[in-house]
């Protein structure tokens, strides 16, 4: 196999896509090959860069694979205890109401140990963005069952597949949160195809705008993959995601603000 060697600039081509140089650091991401976390990080930081709000944005990282988000996002960030990112973000926002504040959390973090904080942050209508990465598994700790794990899905703590009897149902927390009057915007997106990434970016842009307009809590769920936890190649994982996750977690807006 021969590689094509070109110098695009010399060829007169113009750059139409490059990583956001100011808001993404140079640090190599520690995520597994093909993991969706990287895409979401990048898209978030593209937005911060394009909107020119690097100096106005404060992020809160969770405990989960994205615990090191602050190694990559070149903005002020806090690393919260497992499940408490939204409580941390609440305090940051209350003290700096003119800043854009977001939390970035996995499904274990946001929908298991952090359920109370998630729901009460949303119920207070805290004017923040919660970015919720739903990969139906605990990636960081080695592939255990998450609240969002599908029925029948094998994980290291549901080796025979998740059963209702032992572990109950996959939790659709976004739908629950959408019920709360303090919540302005709830949408479910993904990053498994180029178009999905385009839609995610749009959704995140909306969320930042709503925050500026003080509409209330915004939650952007990203149905994502975990090739390592799922024991699949990244390509397989993205296919599996579309086939198995989407029926239960269909992409699209769940709640949008009036007007």
């Amino acid at each position: 196999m021969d590689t094509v060697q070109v110098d695009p600039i010399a060829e007169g081509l113009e750059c139409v896509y490059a990583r956001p140089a100011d808001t993404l650091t140079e640090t190599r991401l520690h995520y597994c090959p093909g993991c969706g976390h990287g895409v979401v990080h990048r898209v978030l930081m593209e937005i911060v860069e394009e909107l020119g709000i690097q100096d106005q944005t404060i992020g809160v990282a969770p405990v989960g694979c994205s615990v090191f988000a602050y190694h990559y996002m070149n903005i002020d960030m806090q690393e919260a205890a497992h499940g408490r990112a939204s409580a941390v973000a609440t305090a940051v926002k209350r003290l700096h109401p003119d800043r854009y504040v977001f939390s970035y959390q996995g499904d274990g973090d946001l929908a298991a140990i952090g359920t109370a904080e998630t729901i009460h942050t949303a119920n207070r209508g805290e004017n923040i963005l919660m970015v919720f990465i739903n990969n139906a598994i605990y990636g960081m700790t080695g592939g255990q069952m998450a609240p969002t794990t599908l029925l029948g899905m094998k994980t290291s703590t549901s080796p025979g597949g998740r059963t209702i009897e032992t572990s109950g149902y996959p939790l659709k927390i976004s739908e629950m949160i959408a019920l709360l009057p303090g919540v302005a915007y709830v949408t479910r997106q993904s990053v498994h195809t180029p178009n999905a990434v385009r839609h995610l970016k749009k959704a995140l842009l909306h969320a930042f705008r709503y925050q500026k307009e003080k509409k209330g809590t915004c939650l952007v769920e990203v149905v994502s993959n975990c090739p390592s936890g799922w024991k699949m190649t990244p390509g397989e994982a993205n296919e599996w995601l579309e086939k198995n996750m989407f029926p239960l977690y269909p992409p699209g807006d769940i709640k949008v603000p009036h007007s």
Partner: protein
Amino acid sequence: MKHELLVAGFGGQGVLSMGMTLAYAGMVEGKEISWMPSYGPEMRGGTANCIVIVSDAKISSPIIAAFDTVVALNQPSLDKFEGAVRKGGLLIYESTNIIKPPTRTDITIVPVAAAEEALKLKNSRTMNMIILGAFLERTHVVETGAIMQALAKVLPERYHNLLPLNETALKRGFELAARVAA
């Protein structure tokens, strides 16, 4: 007899299972054993290593700073652990992957082109068995027979058809190591 070994390399290279095979083989021979992985945020790539101690007597500390043998399967591991070989000890490295060879002169250094050899065996996963063969050729910590018994135990049933291939790999390792001037 007590032998203290460190195996280090990329996550996918079979570092931990090579150490574990040796540990099981030690068990087979009735020895005292300790196998200590360096565990990290495991799901991610990067380097992995384990310490294996095989001894006739009860093992006190399972953690040590200097080793009788270090096996390095990639460049970062070699760079990091070359210094951890005891004076007079043994350093085995995978010479296909490693371009910057070790420089110490107070230890025995055995380069083994195990990756290359594994390709010849048409199964890249035999690489660590080749290395293990080389290690045994030099140290005789356990017998080959014990390794084969250990493998039968470590490998899930469904892979037992691979046992002969692994035995071949082990022998290749023996041969490769024997070829290197001691």
